[in-house]
């Protein structure tokens, strides 16, 4: 079977296998998987509002998927999209609260830029440490995730906090809010989705059509050969990490500008980690990532409905785990579906 078709089939088959295994898990707690999956589909696509809400949930996931996927292409495992998303959203909010005097045409792009720079700067800590000392980005970005988490829960209660109940920042200036594409009942379909799709297209152009993109891919594919060919590895590591962080920062920023209109401590809620599954399902291809994010957004959105029929929404994490596991060891998928030992 040719390689291209196969790289498309592995994620699709992994999703199928994961859903089958998960249905046994649902059976195990005495629930009917058919009812559960029906609720899942109803919750994700069952009405105009459900579809709008799925798209809203997909928007940040495209960006965190791109963030992780971009890292993978450059040979880096950015497991810190979660933290970069938080820092991007937090800094962008601090900026956007104070831009009431600016017209929207300035305030919107500037807020996005600020969020991206903040995410990039935060990710660069890990990039810089890897380039300078060789510290593995998996360990450093996880540490940075926890630091961002605690930092944000401080910032959102003390310096930025307003009101009672859930810790939250004040609302951002209305000139920095993204105009909704349309309003379906109470759900505002954010125009952030356009930004996210544009980001995917830009990333595809950067990776496939520019020499810098070629350098980054070469450094990821075979660092020794790339270095021998005159590519500066250290610079590329920092740059790749920064771009990856900028995408994650943008994910958080769009959540603030288009959905919540303020910073909340719970805003990331695992979306950075979802980026890992999305990048793997999308095989690190920007266009594939859009579809993978849509799948994950639908699963996330539909899982709320599943909760009503008595299936905890954590089942989605189990599904994701199985997908990632199978994509990691794609030879397993080949063996299951080709019914013969493929070069075991």
């Amino acid at each position, binding site marked *: 079977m040719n390689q291209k078709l196969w790289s498309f089939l592995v994620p699709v088959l992994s999703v199928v296998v994961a859903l089958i295994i998960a249905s046994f898990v649902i059976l195990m707690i005495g629930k009917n998987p058919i009812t559960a999956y029906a609720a899942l589909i109803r919750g994700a696509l069952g009405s105009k509002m459900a579809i709008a809400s799925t798209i809203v949930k997909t928007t940040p996931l495209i960006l965190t998927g791109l963030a992780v996927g971009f890292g993978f292409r450059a040979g880096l495992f950015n497991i810190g999209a979660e933290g970069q998303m938080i820092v991007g959203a937090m800094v962008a909010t601090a900026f956007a609260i104070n831009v009431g005097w600016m017209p929207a045409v300035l305030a919107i792009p500037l807020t996005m830029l600020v969020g991206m720079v903040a995410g990039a700067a935060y990710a660069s800590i890990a990039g810089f440490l890897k380039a300078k000392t060789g*510290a593995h980005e998996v360990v450093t970005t996880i540490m940075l995730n*926890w630091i961002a988490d605690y930092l944000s829960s*401080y910032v959102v209660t003390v310096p930025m906090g307003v009101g009672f109940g859930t810790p939250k920042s004040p609302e951002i200036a209305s000139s920095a809010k993204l105009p909704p594409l349309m309003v379906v009942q109470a759900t505002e379909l954010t125009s952030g989705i356009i930004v996210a799709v544009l980001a995917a297209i830009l990333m595809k152009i950067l990776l496939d059509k520019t020499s810098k993109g070629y350098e980054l891919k070469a450094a990821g594919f075979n660092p020794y050969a790339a270095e021998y060919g005159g590519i500066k590895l250290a610079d590329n590591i920092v740059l790749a990490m920064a771009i990856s962080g900028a995408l994650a920062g943008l994910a958080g920023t769009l959540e603030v500008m288009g959905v919540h209109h303020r910073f909340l401590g719970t805003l990331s809620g695992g979306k950075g980690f979802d980026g890992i599954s999305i990048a793997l399902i999308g095989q690190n291809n920007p266009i594939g990532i859009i579809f993978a994010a849509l799948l994950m957004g639908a699963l996330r959105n539909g899982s709320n409905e599943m909760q009503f029929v008595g299936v905890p929404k954590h089942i989605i994490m189990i599904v994701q785990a199985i997908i*990632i596991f199978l994509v990691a060891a794609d030879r397993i998928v080949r063996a299951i579906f080709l019914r013969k030992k493929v070069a075991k």
Partner: protein
Amino acid sequence: MRLFLALIDIFTNPAFYKLTLTAATPLIFASLGGVFSETTGVVNIALEGIMLMGAFVSVVFTWLTGNAWIGVFFAVLVGLGMAWLHAWASITWRGNQIVSGTALILLAQGVTGFLMEPIFGRPGQTDIVGKIAEVKIPFLMKNRFLAQSIGELSPMIYVAFASVFVAWFVIYKTKLGLRMRAVGENPEAADTLGVNVYAVRYFGVLMSGVMASLGGAFLSVGEVGNFRELMSGGRGFIALAAMILGNWNPVGAMWASLLFGFSEAFANQLQSSPLLRVASTTKPLFNMFPFIVTLIVIAGFIGKTRPPAADGVPYEK
């Protein structure tokens, strides 16, 4: 000045040293797991997930049987199962070890969260199910300071330190250990000499499952007696940092774990110090401390220690 007094107060308080040991113990277990696995050349970032699962399973079986040791036993069994999955994907099927590890972390978070409601009737955290009783060492109880610091400890803390010795002995003083190191440094050469590379790597990864699940079980039934969602809280990764700082050596990993345990206990004591009266809203800043320490240590020491040469590289015959 008040800070200075608070520091003196913390360092002269015997409870602080007990807290350090308590905070270090899960890290010691898990970092030994990392040492076992990576010595044979398999990176296992699933430690975090195995710990979480160990914490959960031990609480479930303690709740079912009323005996926390039975809980620990089942935690180890499930830890072995998870480690076997990692070994299966990354050794037998030569998958990407870091991606497989990530999948297992997610699996643990999913499974523990998923089962909370069906088993305990509510999400978030379980009831207190009982924990392993602390053991008094009579001759240490005579001195007040010793009594309150190391006189009365969880037996699992002794198990952790004994494991350090056992791990060191196995890896550096036995034939099996020699094979483990050979497989981690140069699997081709080891293979040529008739060592079963896959079997030795399976052993390393399975041992990491045993160790990490013990660390997780300590967090729940060893320390607090219940399970909270995501209670491993990044300790699996701090343990990996301890392994690196300890130069992939069990004794080094133990010292590094003690350092990280110390920083966790220190941050804890500082924020609850009656002299400083830290506002509850400022406390998150103190919780950052152990992670910042880990980050700095990793960045400062990494070039000075050396991983096994074939660490993270799948072996193809």
